[in-house]
């Protein structure tokens, strides 16, 4: 093994330990203090803590990048912090448009496959200037106040992925990167994040689904990051995906009856419909990424 490869593995290992450690310690600690899981508890104070843990937790990978780079004397020259638009504006636009389209596709798929016998207007009657205004505000907020997602993306796409691409083939890097990213969420998933705690196979099913979801998202995020040589489009995509996913849009646009029927859907049904757009995006992105020239060995 060459010295350079050994150094890359060492840096990656340090980065991952620093990224994983805070959640592994904090989440069980909070569970112990409050007596209930962080994201599935009844306590109002806990809900506020969950939000703050989410915001600051997303910034952990960025802190890990900083610490690792400083500790291992790695230069910041190629750190994906620049913004380059020339010939890349399509990818920048896609990072905002694609997650919105994914969410709308999710809503349409739920209506088409599981709310049969109801017109689109009856299923989602709350489409009016107020809710559209709220939707646009949330979208703008996701793009402008992108700091939490920047924290994650600078770590995963801006540091981990270039290192993995250096160590293994593209396909393996996408899969391994996605799984690592999914496993990083494991303490949160165990504490009820995204899926709650009341589902078959808890918590392993949730962790597995999260890993799968992360592998799928990793395709598009790595593609835009490598194409634009910048971390910001991935951060925009990530933030919009978190703030405007179909589950949130349903609460804004759907009728009480529709929400009731969606709640009665099984977990696989919910996942297939809400992730339909993500799967299509992942496949297209993966093909484009494989066709792309091998990324520069910049990390």
């Amino acid at each position, binding site marked *: 093994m060459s010295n350079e490869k050994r150094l890359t593995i060492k840096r990656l290992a340090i980065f991952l330990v620093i990224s994983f450690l805070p959640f592994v310690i904090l989440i069980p600690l909070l569970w112990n203090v409050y007596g209930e899981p962080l994201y599935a508890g009844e306590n*109002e*104070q806990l*809900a*506020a*803590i969950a*939000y*703050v843990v989410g*915001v*600051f937790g997303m910034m952990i990978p960025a802190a890990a990048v900083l610490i690792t780079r400083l500790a291992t004397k790695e230069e910041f020259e190629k750190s994906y912090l*620049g913004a380059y638009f020339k010939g890349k504006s399509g990818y920048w636009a896609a990072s905002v448009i694609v997650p919105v389209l994914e969410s709308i596709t999710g809503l349409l798929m739920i209506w088409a496959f599981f709310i049969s016998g109801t017109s689109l207007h009856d299923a989602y009657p709350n489409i*009016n*200037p*107020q809710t*559209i*205004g*709220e*939707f*646009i*505000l949330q979208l*703008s*907020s996701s*793009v*402008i*106040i992108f*700091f939490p997602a920047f924290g994650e993306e600078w770590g995963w796409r801006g540091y981990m992925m270039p290192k993995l691409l250096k160590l293994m083939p593209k396909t393996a890097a996408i899969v391994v990167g996605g799984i690592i990213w999914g496993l990083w969420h494991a303490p949160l998933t165990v504490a009820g994040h995204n899926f709650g705690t009341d589902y078959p196979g808890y918590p392993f099913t949730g962790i597995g689904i999260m890993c799968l979801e992360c592998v799928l998202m990793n395709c598009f995020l790595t593609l835009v990051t490598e194409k634009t040589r910048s971390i910001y489009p991935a951060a925009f995509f990530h933030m919009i995906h978190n703030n405007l996913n179909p589950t949130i849009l349903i609460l804004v646009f759907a009728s009480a009856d529709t929400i009731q029927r969606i709640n009665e859907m099984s977990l696989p049904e919910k996942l297939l419909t809400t992730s339909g757009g993500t799967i299509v995006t992942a496949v297209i992105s993966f093909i484009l990424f494989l066709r792309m020239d091998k990324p520069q060995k910049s990390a």
Partner: protein
Amino acid sequence: MGGLIYRNFYTNISSFRLSVIVSAICCASFVFYSFTIRSDAENQSYLLYIIAFLLYYFCFMLSGLTSTMVFQTDENKTASAFAISLPHGGKGHIQSKYWYLLIILLTTLFITFISDTISFLILGGKFSALLVLLLLFSGRLLMFAIEIPFMVRFGAMKGIKIKGIIVSVILLLVITYLMFGDISWLLYSDDPAKALINWLKNGDIIFALSLLPPFSIFAYWLSCKISVKLFREGAENYEQ
């Protein structure tokens, strides 16, 4: 481009520092205030909105003042001739100033966002000023978009005067509306702050407000394009 942005930071480091320090003090004040009223946050949410707006407005206003300085420092024939002679030319010179101002605003936004998140925790999730931050940021960006082309074309001092005229016109419109418009929702209310926030949450107002952030981003981009075009004409009028 990185070098030009760095140069702007280097020549305006004191105003950048001042902006960060004042933002940090304002945010710390808000966090402290949140701490003092944490047990009664639900009843005081309207007052919280007003105080958050004032403190955060001050942060963004101060970071906005740096725009004058960043243009004033290069407002002479030697600096403009040097900028035009660089590989990026006048275009890079102006674009770097737009990037600098955007970074300043984003830094302020980051500080205020952290403050808002901490306040959210202290107040038990009962109050968040995220919407206020978004609108303040967008408003400030729009102001930059309007004032910078004038600064580039006519110089920083004349630019300030033109900005003053624009702000006066806006204020005049607001006063006119307050004098002749339908403000019964405000006049017959026991709590004007509460009435104002309820009015803002009205469907049509929310929709109009929601257009401000995307419009301000577009305006900022357009303003940059216009300023690049105006730079040469403006540079000819600079004093030696």
